[in-house]
């Protein structure tokens, strides 16, 4: 018989803890709940006592956040799935750092998928994505997250969005073109990065192109119009996005 993953649930609301507990009991035979905690202090204690493999962690609690709890374990030896009701700021940072999270109210299918993902990750490597969490802590320090975690062929790469010249779609993959003429293939589609970077002066000039306005060298109207980037590449621009592009350009603050 396979050893079950020891699991701890931390949430300030008893109902929320009980809910996760029942869902695990009904749908996740791979997990065994070994502890429930209702605030940061008792959460830290439970984790130290039980040494769990997986922690479900609420972000917003009245006497300290889930992030505060994690800061007690800089070299943690367990996986974490964040649970959050509403906090734009935290969600943005979590997404940027490629850390797992689930929204409240819980969607049971999503919950099961998140658990599956953890199980799968544990079967291929024994690391706990600690680097991602360090990046998360860093991203939380400023209102605009500064490091974007992207999964690559040989692991993770952490980029400052300022280094990205443009991103080009290649079916469900994306090519990152970086300053210093480096390029990386990433196994996520362009749409996801557009969501993350839309408020950072990135512009979707074409169905398969997301460009950083900072690196635009010129806009040429002739031959249907195209944009020349500072690395000399010519990027097509869709007809109906030309006006929008000019508007974005004029608002761009560098």
């Amino acid at each position, binding site marked *: 018989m396979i050893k079950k993953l020891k699991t701890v649930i931390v949430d*300030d*609301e*008893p*109902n*929320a803890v*009980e*809910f996760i507990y*029942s*869902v695990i009991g009904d749908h996740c035979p791979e997990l065994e709940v070994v502890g429930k905690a209702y*605030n940061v202090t008792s959460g830290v204690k439970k984790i130290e006592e039980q040494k769990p493999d997986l922690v479900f962690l609420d972000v*917003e609690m*009245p*006497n*300290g*956040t889930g*992030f*505060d709890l994690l*800061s007690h374990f800089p070299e943690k030896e367990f996986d974490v799935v964040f649970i959050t*009701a*509403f*906090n734009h*700021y935290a969600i943005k940072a979590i997404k940027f750092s490629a850390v797992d999270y689930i*929204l*409240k*109210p*819980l969607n049971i299918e999503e919950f099961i998928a998140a658990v599956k993902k953890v199980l799968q990750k544990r079967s291929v490597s024994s690391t706990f994505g600690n680097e991602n969490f360090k990046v998360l*802590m860093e991203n*939380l*320090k400023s*209102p605009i997250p500064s490091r974007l975690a992207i999964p690559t062929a040989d692991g993770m790469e952490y980029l400052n969005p300022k280094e990205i010249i443009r991103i080009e779609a290649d079916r469900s993959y994306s090519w990152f073109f970086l300053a210093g003429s480096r390029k990386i293939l990433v196994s996520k589609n362009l749409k996801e990065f557009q969501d993350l970077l839309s408020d950072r002066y990135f512009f979707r000039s074409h169905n398969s192109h997301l460009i950083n306005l900072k690196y*635009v*060298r*010129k*806009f040429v*109207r002739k031959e249907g119009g195209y944009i020349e980037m500072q690395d000399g590449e010519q990027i097509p621009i869709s007809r109906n996005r030309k006006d929008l592009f*000019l508007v974005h*350009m*004029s608002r*761009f*603050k*560098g």
Partner: protein
Amino acid sequence: MLNAYVFMNSMIKTVLILLCLSATAASGTDRSLNVKRNSGAEGLISAATDTAWVNYYVRKGFFHLTKKSYNLEKVLAYIDTACLICEKEEFDFPPSLHLLRAEYFYETGDFSKSETDATLAVKKAEHEMDYLLQAKSLIFLGRYYHRTGFYQESIDQFAKSIQLAEEKNLKGIKQKAYAAEAEVYKSVNDLKAYSDNLRSMVNASLIEKDTLYAQAGLLKLGSLFTEDLRDFRLASSTLKECIRLSLARRDTYYIAFAMANTGWNFYRENMLDSSLFYYQQSLKYSSGKSANALGNMGTIYRDYGDYNRALKYYGKSLDIARSNHDWYSLSWVYKDMSDLYLSRKDTSEAFKSYVFYKQFNDSVSSQKSWLGLSEARIRYDADTHNKEIALLSLRLKNNRILNTGFTVLIIGLIVIGLLILRSSKLNEKRRISEMNHKISEITQANLRQQMNPHFIFNTLNSIQYYMYQHDTLATNNYLTKFSSLMRKVLDNSQHTSVPLRDELDALNLYLELECLRFKDKFEFSITVDDEIDPLMYKVPTMLIQPYVENSICHGLIPMERKGFVHIDLKLEKEHLVCIIEDNGIGREAANEIKKMRETNHNSLGTRITASRLELVNALYGTSLNTVYTDLKNEKGEAEGTRVEIQIPILT
């Protein structure tokens, strides 16, 4: 009778008009700009550009903005061009450009952008050690907060700029900051602070020999001591100082105004001779065109019992006031005239004047919204008059053909001036109504910031839990409570005030839900004084709930034992008092927890609540506040928190 402010207010307009004229004349030189701009937009690149160009455009932009010619399109064109160059040449926006943008957005009513740019201007100027610009930007930011009703923030900015000016020995900053700060205190009706600031403004400008600001400050102080903080000696010494300064500068506007104020100051002491003398002086310096001085002289003669002369002066005053559309003077002169007729038992004339008085008095309230314009108009009148004199003396030297030419020119000038005056008046009205609309929108957005989304989603999650447990009764109970609360909140948010009963119903539902969420972690009670009829008393919407939520989240939930929160409403003379008392961990411990948190970004909630109370005060002219008391037991250990909110009674 005359209020000193109105005369002054009748004046700022002039600058406006003359500048409009100069702007039209200057428009010819701007063609180069348009060419430049087009070529920039075509290729998005113009090769030979650099910081000097950006600075040039920013300067031009400021020129059109600060001169209040209201040629905003031109300003925008300069901004766009400067931005394009910066982007293309890959250098950061200079702080001056940010400040220009901030002022532009402020003019167009785009407040959030204005704030962003102004903040950037402050930061960048500080970084580049351009302290003068930093100070200017701080003053702007202060004015911005003043306009948007964040008075405390506004004052903070001014204090910062004053401090900066001290440290770096900057010229021309302190008096402006004090002047603007004074206006904030005036808005909140804190006359003591208002006068202190005016005093500092005068001192600062005297040190820098900036007589223009010094006399402006003295004049305002003088008016204040004449009217609101009645002090005959202080008023007359302040005004005397102002007259001395403005005589040295031959600034007829200030001389006339200060003289008129002095006249009024004497009149209020019933010293008619002195009063009459000063009004005569004022009249002389305003070239005989002051409805205010003439009207007051009429009143003085009335008090002397010289009714014929009084009527003559009233007549003159009314003529000028009518041609200036000076409703305020028209209204009070008619009122005084009516009194005069009444004392002569000429009831029919008295009645006639009284009818006129009522009529113009009604217009005054509508006129108050563009007082700033009428102030400019008087200055305009004075200036055109000075011009006329200059032109007349020229005419003597020249031959007759030129004479007619000048006459035509003067008439032309006056006609154009009047036309522009008309249109600017309309513009101003529109701008003000747009501004008010924007402000009330911001207000509304603030007022609707009511239910914490965090609470909503967590509640939904709890409901889902019961559902999952097949506990249909609990699910149903929870869900219906939640929808009742949402319905109440939505209903209430339609209004800025609701009957106390509705407010308490929502609060009760909220508390019941929190109790369910946290499984009887605490108890609560709501008591209302018998004297209070909860249907009749209206209160600002959702003012209490955020305080209660604070109590629960920061006081009760972090606690080990069971807690309680009592809400008690009492009636006082002019307001309701809501007392929220809990036995939680106390504010000190809650702050400790906050400090311990690695990430702390939710101070927004309390800030919104505080500024809402400020807003309520501003809206209803009240001065209500919130008192926090830390409860302690005999051993001096924290035993909870009591918050007393004073709530205005609205009907």
